[in-house]
């Protein structure tokens, strides 16, 4: 049975229908509200034991299939996979009442879910391999998005930079976001189809707060990005194909995509990747167990299993993203040897160029700025 489409009982159908009808008639009430308390105490410790098959919800292709097979064989359970294509899509599925055992929010979304009491507490002392993370990466012992990492365990890390075609632009750029305005790339520049990432270019170039919601700041950012429009060929998060099929001479790109390209390009030497000195947005995906998970014990076992050194190595080699697990650094460094800037160091984390959550009004202001940047 697909975890995305649980069988709808008559009772749940009526309950959902009533909630929708109530939502329509009572002004100011929530949208398909779900009471987290209905699923037990999210702070209660989880017994690390097999308590059912694992219902897993992540980006597509983000774990080596061999790792899944090993887990299924060792613990005699099935991993029932389901994928999302955006954090908003993931949140919408959770809000609609879907029940997953393990999800993978980014830092910003982890903070939202924690503050909304949507995640179970994860007791690190019950995970045999947790020390490889928290004992080696101080940053994640008490990150801004989840105090003391009480509800999350970091999974991957990545940065945003500029990827380019050396055969079209040349071997070296200047190491600044200004490179997107490079005359040789005019008309063949892509930026990511992502609000925070694109507004981030303007903010970092102007030395402003990465996720500013100040109207004046946003006006300056919009103006800066408008000046990039003549150079732009499109907004697209498919950096991988855009660079490889020649549509892009230069593109804003996530480090993980660039690392993946190294394994796929016929001639990787024609590709380059740089991180701007004004600052590079950094992000992290986390393991998290939703408060309504049916099998949290299996989810804890899976997290512990994923943190075993041999599995970390397999996953890093498979997805091309570094993981904050002590001892895995050499594995990733070997993969991205041509693009050392893909590495995410303790210094990068300390620079703290994370996208943060804003107020409702602030988010709307950023949204309007994004519309102006995109619609021109």
């Amino acid at each position, binding site marked *: 049975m697909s975890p995305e489409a649980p069988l709808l009982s008559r009772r749940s159908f009526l309950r959902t229908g009533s909630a929708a009808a109530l939502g329509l008639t009572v002004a100011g009430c929530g949208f398909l509200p779900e009471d987290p308390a209905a699923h037990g105490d999210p702070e209660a410790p989880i017994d690390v034991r097999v308590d059912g098959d694992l219902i897993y919800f992540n980006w597509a292709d983000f774990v080596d299939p061999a790792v899944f097979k090993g887990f299924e064989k060792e613990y005699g359970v099935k991993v029932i996979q389901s994928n999302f294509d955006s954090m*908003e899509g993931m949140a919408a599925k959770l809000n609609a009442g879907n029940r997953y055992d393990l999800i993978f929010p980014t830092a910003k979304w982890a903070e939202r879910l924690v*503050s909304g009491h949507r995640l179970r507490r994860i007791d690190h002392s019950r995970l045999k391999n947790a020390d490889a993370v928290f004992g080696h990466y101080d940053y994640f012992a008490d990150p801004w998005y989840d105090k003391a990492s009480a509800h999350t365990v970091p999974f991957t890390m990545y940065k945003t930079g500029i990827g380019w075609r050396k055969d079209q632009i040349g071997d070296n750029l200047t190491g600044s976001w200004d490179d997107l305005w490079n005359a040789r790339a005019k008309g063949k520049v892509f930026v990511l189809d992502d609000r925070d990432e694109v507004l981030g270019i303007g903010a970092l170039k102007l030395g402003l707060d990465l996720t500013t919601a100040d109207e004046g700041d946003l006006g300056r950012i919009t103006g800066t990005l408008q000046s990039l429009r003549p150079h*732009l060929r499109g907004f697209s998060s498919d950096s991988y194909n855009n660079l490889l099929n020649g549509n892009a001479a230069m593109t804003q790109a996530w480090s993980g995509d660039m690392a993946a390209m190294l394994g796929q390009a016929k001639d990787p030497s024609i590709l380059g990747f740089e991180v701007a000195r004004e600052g590079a947005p950094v992000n992290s995906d986390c393991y998290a167990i939703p408060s309504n998970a049916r099998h949290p014990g299996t989810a804890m076992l899976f997290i512990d299993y994923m943190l075993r050194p041999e599995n970390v190595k397999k996953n890093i080699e498979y997805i091309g993203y570094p993981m904050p697990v002590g001892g895995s650094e050499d594995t990733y460094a070997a993969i991205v040897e041509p693009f050392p800037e893909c590495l995410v160091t303790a210094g990068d984390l300390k620079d703290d160029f994370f996208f943060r959550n804003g107020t*409702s009004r602030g988010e709307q202001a950023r949204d309007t700025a994004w519309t102006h940047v995109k*619609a021109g």
Partner: protein
Amino acid sequence: MALRKRPEEPRPRSGPSASGTRLWTWLMIPGTLWMTGFLIASLLLVATLAFGTTDPLGNPRFGLNFENIAAMTDPAYRAVLLRSLGYALLTCLICLVVAYPVAYAIALHGGRFKNLLIAAIVVPFFANYLVRMYGWSVVLSDDGPLLKVLRAVGLADSDTKILQTGMGVIAGLVYGFIVFMIIPLYAALERMDVSLIEAGRDLYGGPLRTFFFVTLPATRQGAMAGCVLVLLPAMGDFVSAQLMGGPDQIMIGNLIQDKFFQGQNWPLGSALTMLMMAVLFIGMLGYLRRTRKDEAEATR
């Protein structure tokens, strides 16, 4: 004993028997209820949410807030809406011009291959729309097969591009929705009385005059139905502009998608959806008035 003639029973309005008609009426009920209930429920949800707000977690909340309506006065939305309408109308026109000869050839000259030819057009349409559009974007890419051929025969130079241009977006829209034009046109041509064409010829009308004064008016209903079927999805499409458009080809569907999936601003996305539906509703009203007039003329 003289046989008394039984009074004549009223004939069923259609179908072989009254009980058969009743059966069909009953069979229509679930579908009609389903469509009416869910269409109205979802439309109400979108319409109500247009006046909502977003909570600190990004979840939409119902309310009585007019900020989303006010936000739509932003000139950026007007420009994008007009562009979308222009692209959709142009797509309609190209579909009509390209689909008519195809439908004509199959309906009037397809012979025993008619069904096979229609299947050849319809079956590829069952492939996932996104996959077909990705494939199309590869065909039109700078290093793709189409531009390679055009360059080889001297019809394009190294700077020519199709992707990330308006031409690329319209090519995608035409490719995506042309089947919606072919099918109603084929149905209209198939239903048409071919003796009308012969009559036109008998009255010394040349092929062109016969086509414009006989065939085209006789199939006008099919063409109008095709235009509506193409215009509605083309106007709201976001895949074509996303995969084949550049920064100057953003369509209203892309902005609505952004509001729902990136900004998590469902209320503003709902307001934009209602705006787009209002524009399309005007077109639909015109279509309905025209078809009603045609029906009235036909029954006169």
